[in-house]
Structure formats: structure tokens, C-alpha cells
């Protein structure tokens, strides 16, 4: 769901774009580039009579429009569902009432139109100074190409004819769309796993869980578009774009409030810093560490989100203390006081009544990993370790200091879970100087 900014190795703005490329992205872009080159070569070779120029123009415009109205999804993802509807429908178009009901273009033509449409739609984003979203575009292009290469030959074999029962056509379209969607999701998960340092299996599950409602809507819209165009021609596209926009609006609002929510918790968690209870940047550093460790341990996004909230608010209980703890390091106060702070913090969070899982994590954050029944939840053990690490190391990136802190935690397997500390060591090793 989110937590995207925590461990994501997003480069600082001054780094050149190519420096931010990793092998996965390079591979994806190379594939997309090769597809585009092949497509343009293929289109030039295509007999003009087979181009279906009007359809190419209409669908290209549709795709460009969809690319213009991209959708930000939770977790810093970006989708272009309307562009996807346009491209997929173009890839699987059965027939048009114009030109004797036959569509004769081939898969390469689909790739070329999709590529041009996406590029045109991305231009305004670039002009407005936003990111071009090249990775997303390449992912979509690869998925659309897969669908086109599967489906265009089927249409050439006469699948779009009137004699074919529509139920069969709908089923095959749905099936091929599913393949394309899975390719899209798979590539997206691969890139994301690489970006945030998550396991691929976890990233794939997260991606499917987050994307399936949108995928369902896109799939149904593709079928509607194909048959609408078959029945009434290309004007259908103009009519259908209205409902699509409205549907997208619902998603936009949802993603928007999610982002504001996270921002608010992040900001308000800093009240403890402003009040002098903890060191500046403490809650944010702890949450970053905790999410990175949680990811390393294979937590899924909803759990990571709860972990992030809990880590951000783990010191909120200190607000109930009369005087700040010197330096704010909870590590230095007695175990009983730590328990009390944790309890008070959990109390505060529970009053919201919507974050009970977060409250649980906060409540057990100071409980030793061993020797208590029931054992504290994994998230609590992660917060405990991350908090202790930050109390000892702070914003310093001195390797000796961090090694000493980790050593101290390793020698105390009752307090700190050994598995958590091991992952924390990995995370700490690739820590870069904080930009706070």
C-alpha cells in the first residue's frame, strides 16, 4: 500500500537521470525500445490499405488522453488506466462498421500507435516539469505488445467475423486481457521489488492485491470499448471516455486521501521533537529503519503501513510525561517507565479507534523479545530494535558507532530478536547519509 518513500532508493534531484537506472529498468527500457523500433519498421512495410488510418488516429488520441490523466496510486505508484483501456482495446479490436467491418492492421501497428500515443500524452507532463513516467510507459507498452502479438493473429484468422458467437469472443478477450494484465503486474512488481528492496514474491502479492480492482475495471472497459466500437464505430470512444474519467476520479480521491493521511501522521509525529521530547528527526529515522527491516523480513504492504504509523508515533506517549527525558532517548529510562510510555502511546492511538493494530505495535514496543508470554508482535520487536539503534547512533553515519550499537544488540538476544537484528545490520550497512 505505501511506505514507498521510506527505503526507496530514489535519487536526490541533482543526480542525473541515467545514474538512477538499475539493471531491471535498463532491461525493461531496452525491451520497449526494441519493440518500438521493430514496430516502426513494420508499419513502414505494412501495406497502406491495411493501416486502418482512422482507427489508429482515434485510438492513438484516446491513449494520449489517458496518459495525460494518469492516476497516482497509494505507495507512489502511477497508473494510466484510461490509456491502458485504449491500448488494450486497440490491440484486441475485432471489427469496425467502417470498411466492411474488417480491421486489418497487425501487432506491430498496435505497438507503434501505443508508443506514439503514450509519448504524446507524456509531453504535457514533461512540459509541466513532472516526471515523464518512462518506466510506467515501458511497462504498459510491453504488456500491450504481448496482448497484440497474441490477439492480432487470431483476428486475422477470422475471429472478428459475424459468424463467431459473441460469448466466445468476450471470453477470449477476457482471457488475453488477463495475460496482459499479469505481464503488467509482473513487470511492475519486479521493478518495485528492485526499487524498495522487497522480496519479489511479496512485491507481486502486494501488486496484485492493490491492482486487481483497477484491473477488473480496465478489463470490463476494454470489452465494452471493443464491442461498442464494433457496433457503432469510433465515435463510441468519445462517448465512453466520460464514464471512464468519472470512475478514475473515484480512485484519484482515494489515493489522495491516503497520501494526506500519511503526510499528516508523519508531520504530527514530529510534535514530540518540537516539544523537545526526542531528538530532531528521530521518529522519521526510526520509521525508515523499521520499514526497511520489515521489508527485509518479508512483510506485506498493509503490515508495513501499520509498522510505519507505529514507528512514527512510537514516542507519542511521552507527551503525557511532565518533563522530557534528557535527550529523548527512551533507551536510558527504566524498563517500567518505557512500558508506561508505550502504554500511554497505545492509549492515545486507540482513541482514534481505527488504528488498533498500530496501537498494539506501539504498546509492545519495549517488551523484550524473549521470556514474555505472549511474545510481542514482530512489528513491535522491529520498532524496539530500530528505536534502540537510533538512540545509540542517531543521525550519525559513523560505521564504528553503528557496528558497536549492533554488537550491543546482538549480545542481548533476550531484549532484541536475533532475526530482526540481523536484518537491521543489513539495512544499516546500506544506509546513506540522511537528508533530513
Amino acid at each position: 500500500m505505501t511506505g514507498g518513500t521510506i527505503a526507496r532508493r530514489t535519487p536526490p534531484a541533482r543526480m542525473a537521470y541515467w545514474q538512477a537506472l538499475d539493471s531491471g529498468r535498463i532491461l525493461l527500457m531496452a525491451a520497449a525500445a526494441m519493440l518500438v523500433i521493430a514496430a516502426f519498421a513494420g508499419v513502414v512495410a505494412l501495406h497502406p490499405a491495411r493501416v486502418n488510418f482512422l482507427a489508429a488516429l482515434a485510438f492513438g488520441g484516446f491513449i494520449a488522453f489517458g496518459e495525460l490523466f494518469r492516476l497516482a496510486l497509494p505507495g507512489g505508484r502511477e497508473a494510466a488506466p484510461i490509456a491502458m483501456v485504449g491500448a488494450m482495446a486497440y490491440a484486441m479490436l475485432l471489427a469496425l462498421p467502417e470498411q466492411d467491418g474488417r480491421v486489418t492492421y497487425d501487432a506491430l501497428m498496435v505497438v507503434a500507435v501505443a508508443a506514439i500515443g503514450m509519448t504524446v500524452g507524456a509531453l504535457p507532463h514533461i512540459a509541466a516539469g513532472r516526471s515523464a513516467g518512462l518506466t510506467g510507459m515501458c511497462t504498459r507498452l510491453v504488456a500491450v505488445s504481448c496482448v497484440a502479438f497474441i490477439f492480432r493473429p487470431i483476428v486475422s484468422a477470422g475471429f472478428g467475423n459475424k459468424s463467431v458467437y459473441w460469448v466466445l469472443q468476450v471470453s477470449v478477450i477476457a482471457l488475453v486481457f488477463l495475460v496482459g494484465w499479469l505481464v503488467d503486474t509482473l513487470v511492475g512488481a519486479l521493478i518495485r521489488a528492485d526499487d524498495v528492496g522487497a522480496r519479489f514474491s511479496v512485491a507481486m502479492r502486494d501488486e496484485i492485491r492493490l491492482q486487481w480492482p483497477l484491473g477488473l475495471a480496465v478489463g470490463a472497459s476494454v470489452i465494452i470499448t471493443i464491442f461498442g466500437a464494433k457496433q457503432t464505430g469510433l465515435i463510441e470512444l468519445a462517448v465512453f471516455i466520460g464514464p471512464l474519467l468519472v470512475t478514475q476520479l473515484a480512485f484519484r480521491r482515494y489515493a489522495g486521501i491516503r497520501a494526506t493521511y500519511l503526510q499528516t501522521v508523519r508531520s504530527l509525529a514530529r510534535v514530540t521533537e518540537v516539544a523537545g521530547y526526542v531528538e530532531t528527526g528521530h521518529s522519521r529515522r526510526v520509521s525508515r529503519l523499521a520499514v526497511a527491516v520489515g521489508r527485509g523480513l518479508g512483510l506485506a504492504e498493509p503490515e508495513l503501513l501499520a509498522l510505519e504509523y507505529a514507528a512514527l508515533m512510537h514516542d507519542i506517549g511521552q507527551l503525557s510525561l511532565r518533563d522530557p527525558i534528557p535527550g529523548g532517548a527512551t533507551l536510558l529510562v527504566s524498563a517500567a517507565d518505557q512500558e508506561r510510555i508505550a502504554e500511554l502511546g497505545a492509549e492515545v492511538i486507540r482513541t482514534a479507534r481505527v488504528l488498533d493494530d498500530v496501537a498494539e505495535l506501539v504498546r509492545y514496543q519495549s517488551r523484550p523479545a524473549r521470556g514474555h508470554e505472549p511474545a510481542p508482535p514482530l512489528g513491535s520487536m522491529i520498532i524496539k530494535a530500530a528505536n534502540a539503534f537510533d538512540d545509540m547512533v542517531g543521525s550519525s553515519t559513523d560505521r564504528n558507532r553503528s557496528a558497536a550499537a549492533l554488537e550491543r544488540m546482538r549480545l542481548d538476544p533476550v531484549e532484541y530478536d536475533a532475526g530482526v537484528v540481523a536484518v537491521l545490520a543489513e539495512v544499516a550497512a546500506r544506509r546513506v547519509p540522511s537528508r533530513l
Partner: protein
Amino acid sequence: MVSRAARLYIGLVVSTAAVLVAAVVACDREMQAHFWTPSPGLQHPLAALITLQALFLVCDSGATPMTSRQTRWSPSSSATLAAVVLLGPVAAALVGATALLSLQRHLRLAERLFNGAMYALSGLAAGGAYLACHAVPGLPNSYNLRTILLPFAAAATVHVIANHGLVWGVHRLNRGRAMWRRDGLESNLTLLLASDLGYACLGLVIASLWEIMGWFAAALVLVPLFVARWAMGQFAEQQRAYAATMNALCQAVETKDYYTRGHGDRVSRGAVMIARQIRMSTERTEAIRFAGMLHDVGKLGVPTQVLQKTGALTEDEFAAIQLHPMRGLEIVREIGFLFEALNGIMHHHERMDGRGYPMGLAGHEIPEFARVIAVADAFDSMTTTRSYREAKSIEFALGELRNGAGTQFDPVVVEAFIAAIEKDPWKLPEPAAKPADPTTVTVKDHDDPTAPLRVVEP
């Protein structure tokens, strides 16, 4: 709950709908012809009608609350407009009338009757508009789509206008002036109209698919609708969770100071009352709600000893207090709400005569949000108990606000607040009991205009 005028109005709408539908059925044979006799390709018009009615019911029951109880976000107009295209005005009215049977259980009979009549009338009007533009009900295809596009646009517009106009009437009569409130119809009106028009287009899409797949077209269209509804539900849920979390965090911030507990919440309430009175847009009202809640968050950055000090303050201590709006800004700066809300938090202690802090802005240099929050802030401070005095009465506090109008407060905002309180009486909080823990008491309240902070003369 329903006023007499509103009852009359509902009765009028219901009887008009009944009479009109009956009249059309009785008088206009031609119009019925579209409905009872199969048109080319549409072999079972009755089955189509029933399918569309079912679609209407499903859409209607799946309507999601948008921002309030009254305004619901319903894509059911797509079914009515599909009926307009396929079967004509009478069928559209019959599809709309299905709202009587709505599966939303909480609806009262009057509401059901009104909804049924309202949708029937809207359907009839849309169908009439469609015919008036010389379009003939039937299956759309590539030959006639061009010719029915404009009539369809007219029908969709008429439907949206009729629908919202009739609903507006009932709100207007039922709640009088109160309908300008956020919980009335107008909240997000543009959004609502746009989404209604968007979904109306779906009617034409359904009609276009009908020749190929019949009832399956309706089912297919439901998929994106339900996904959108799911997203809207998620949105509402997140919004609730967000507000609850915000409340919890604000409460946590206030626990330090016994007497000002709930202050943020009340200031937020007061600021929203003023915002509505001066007719701020929904979006800005929402922003001022949060700004009011968070306006004193920076007080946490002021050392407890200073807040609890009796007697006059040294220059340094006074400076520490004056810094709290900036501290607040520091905390909330990264939250992505309106820039204006940040301004409101930062400048809520400016005075109209320019003697406030932190910047010493004067008059209309002070952002509107800050002028609103300042009034709500001072009012709540006066009407709640402090350690050094009992709570003042509302009349006294309003008098003080009037006295300060022009020097400390913006007169327009003060008048707006007084007018708002006359309409909707202010609910005072329970008088605070003596605190159990005397260390949580702030002796001086920096917000209290009746007891301004004193600074030691050097």
C-alpha cells in the same frame, strides 16, 4: 422531520409524475408504440425494460454517500438514459419509478415516493427531450449514432437538471436557509454534476451494446461501476480514519495542559461556523477545520515552565510564547493541505491594528483564515474555565469580541460569528472540574483577550 411545505412539494411531485405518465400512456399511442411493439433488432422490449429496471435498482442500492447523508453518488441515471435511447420516454419513466423499491432499507416512505416520482419525471423529461430532437427510440448502430448523439446529449442534460432541480427543491423547502450548509445539496456540486453527466453517457454505451449482447451489456457496465463504488467507499473510510487519527493526535497534544483540553476541537468548530456564515467554499471550509484543530500545536514547543509561570513574563519568555505559531507551522508544513491553512496557523495571533505576533501584520494583510481562527480562538478561551478565573458567559465573550472588533479582530468575522451563533447556539463544554494533577495547569492563557500577557518592563 419533513416540513409542511416540503410535504406539499413531495405530494405535488408525486401526483405530477403519476398524472403525466398516465396521460402519456393514455393519449399518445405513438409513444407507446416504441415501447410495446418490437423495433428492429429489439425483439423483447419488455425483457429489456425489466433488465434496465434491475440495473437501476442495483445502481441505486450501490449509491455511495459522497460527503454527507443527503448527497449520494449514484450512477443509476445510466439505466434511465439507456431506456430513453432503447425504449422511449414512458419506459424511462418506468425505469426511474423503480426507485420506489430501492433496496436502501433506511429510506422512509415519503423519501421512496419522492425518489420514485422524481426519477420518473426526470426520465420522462429526458425522453421528451430526446424525441423533441427528432431522434427515434431504437437500437443504435453505426448509421444512426451520429444522428442521435446530439439528442442524447440534450436528454442527458435535461435528466441531470431535472434530477438536481427537483432534489434541490425539497432541500430548499425542508431546511430553509440551512441548505447552504455543507450537509446540503451544494457540496461538491460541480463534481456531482460532472460525474452525473459522465455516467449518463454510460446510458448510450449500454444501448450501443444491446444489439450484440442484450442484458449482458448491463452486467458488463456494472463492473467498472462497482469498482468505482468500491474506491469511493475506500475513500470515505480513509477520510473517516484520517479525521479520527487527527482528533486523537490533537487530543494527545492537549493532554499536557489541563484547562485547554478540547480547545482545538472547539476552535475548529467555531472557525467552521464562521466559514459557512461567510460562505467559504467546501474545500476551504474543510481546510479551516483542520487549521482550527491544529492552530495551537506549536505550543508544545514552548517550555512548560513558561506556560505555567505566574505573574509577568520576561522579554525572553514572552518571545518564547510568541514563537508558538511558527513552531506550529514547522510541524504542519509538510501536510499537503491548502496553503491557506498554514497561513491561518501561522498568523492566528496577528491583530487588526498590527500589534499582534509573529509578524505584526495589520488589517487585510492578515490572511482570512487567520482572522477567522483568531475570533474562534479568543471566544473559546473566554468561555472556558481557566485556573485564574471561571468561564465567562457567551454574551460577555461576544461583547468582548465586539469591543475588540477593528483593533484586535476583523469586524466582518466577528459579526459573522455572532450571526452564526444566533442561528446555531454554541454548546459550551462541561465546566472543567478541578484538575487531579496540579502540574498540568497552565496559569496564563495566551489566547485570553480579557487577561493579556504582561511583560516585565525593562
